[in-house]
């Protein structure tokens, strides 16, 4: 439940309720993460069963936020939404690190209407309008999900935290990862270290192996965690948390989700 809800939150605007029984992976997959010269990259965005195969539904790009090294927001170029994936291009022209994120905010509600269980998902402002006044046992949950990847031209730089929801803060830079080496990051919640949160990492190519070979780590008092990459490849990191810091008055709880696609190079 936790996982499928996470997937639905991350992919908000794509998945139709009732939520799928199986956990889905939500991801951005860039054509390159380390660049030596200004060039255009292409990014796939999908919700899938396997990493990183687009075999389920596209990830909506409505809430795509691309920040350049100078902190300015950049447009996605040539966006396309297909049956199985979304795609966009990005001109990477400034030296430094780009942060690409799909940020989905929403509200989930469950309630009873004439003895029947109902579920609803949508924008906070639509809540009052779309849930019937005679609904009972109304339970509202706010959600904030961030699906990311990082790309660097030349020397890596560290973008300032968004300070909203869950996110990664580099200790090791996300575009400086090498197989066999340990990488350390911090997880932030609203800009503050998030301790005691479980983070999982799965290498791509899950379609071709029997086990996901998932690695897990728990953030320490400083919000930090580390992974040693067993082999090169694209990895998918995921973390989720919940708290009571709601911004929607009707909500009791806030669910937070974060995923990031990281490329690990060979030695």
């Amino acid at each position, binding site marked *: 439940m936790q996982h499928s809800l996470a997937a639905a939150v991350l992919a908000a605007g794509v998945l139709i309720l009732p939520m799928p029984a199986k956990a889905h992976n939500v991801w951005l997959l860039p054509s390159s993460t380390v660049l*030596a010269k200004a060039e255009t990259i292409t990014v796939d965005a999908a919700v899938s069963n396997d990493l990183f195969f687009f075999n389920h539904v596209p990830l909506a790009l409505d809430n795509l936020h691309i920040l350049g090294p100078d902190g300015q927001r950049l447009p996605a170029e040539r966006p396309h939404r297909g049956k199985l994936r979304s795609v966009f291009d990005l001109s990477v022209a400034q030296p430094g690190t780009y942060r690409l994120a799909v940020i989905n905010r929403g509200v989930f509600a469950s309630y009873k209407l004439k003895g029947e269980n109902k579920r609803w998902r949508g924008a906070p402002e639509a809540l009052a309008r779309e849930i019937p006044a005679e609904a009972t046992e109304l339970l509202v949950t706010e959600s904030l999900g961030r699906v990311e990847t990082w790309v660097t031209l030349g020397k890596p730089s560290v973008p300032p935290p968004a300070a909203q929801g869950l996110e990664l803060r580099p200790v090791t830079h996300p575009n*400086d990862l090498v197989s066999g080496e340990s990488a350390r990051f911090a997880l932030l919640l609203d800009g503050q270290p998030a301790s005691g949160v479980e983070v999982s990492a799965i290498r791509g190519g899950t379609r071709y192996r029997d086990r996901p070979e998932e690695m897990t780590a728990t953030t320490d008092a400083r919000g930090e965690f580390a992974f040693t990459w067993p082999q090169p490849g694209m990895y998918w990191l995921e973390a989720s948390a919940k708290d009571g810091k709601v911004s929607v008055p009707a909500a009791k709880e806030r669910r937070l989700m974060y995923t990031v696609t990281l490329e690990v190079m060979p030695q």
Partner: protein
Amino acid sequence: MSISSSKKILGAVLVATLAQQAAAAELAVQLEIPRLNVAEYHRPYVAVWLEGERKDAHNLAVWYDLKMKDGEGSKWLKDLRQWWRRSGRDLSFPVDGMTSATRAPGRHRLVFSGADAALSRLPAGNYQLVIEIVREVGGREVLTQPLAWPPKEAARFQLQGREELGAVVVDVKP
């Protein structure tokens, strides 16, 4: 003359002598790019550098495709992965006196004098000589040879690549 000032002079003479020694020293790297029987051949990109114990990189030579329009050839410098991480990503290209064009299959000899910019400022110590080679639609190889700089005596090191590099001969002399 006081003892301390004579010590200072002795020290200064010693430093000057060491500097002179280092300036006269020489590092020569002969590397062989094998001729490969492949459908699509591109001349390899090559980086040669000295790496200190703190992973500090001191670049000696980088060969990449300089002929392409708009510096397009610099796009693949990141494929010299280890070099890119150590120092390549901090530079802008071309780098005067360090970068040059790719070379054809055959034996190539690079000679660096202790008076050259790359070596003259190098602190005395133990280094790894690193040779990284990568070929578009081909493979990548990294060879390393530990050596002390400046060298106390002449020495020859022979290395053998597997596919992308053939024989490599490194000569140092004081």
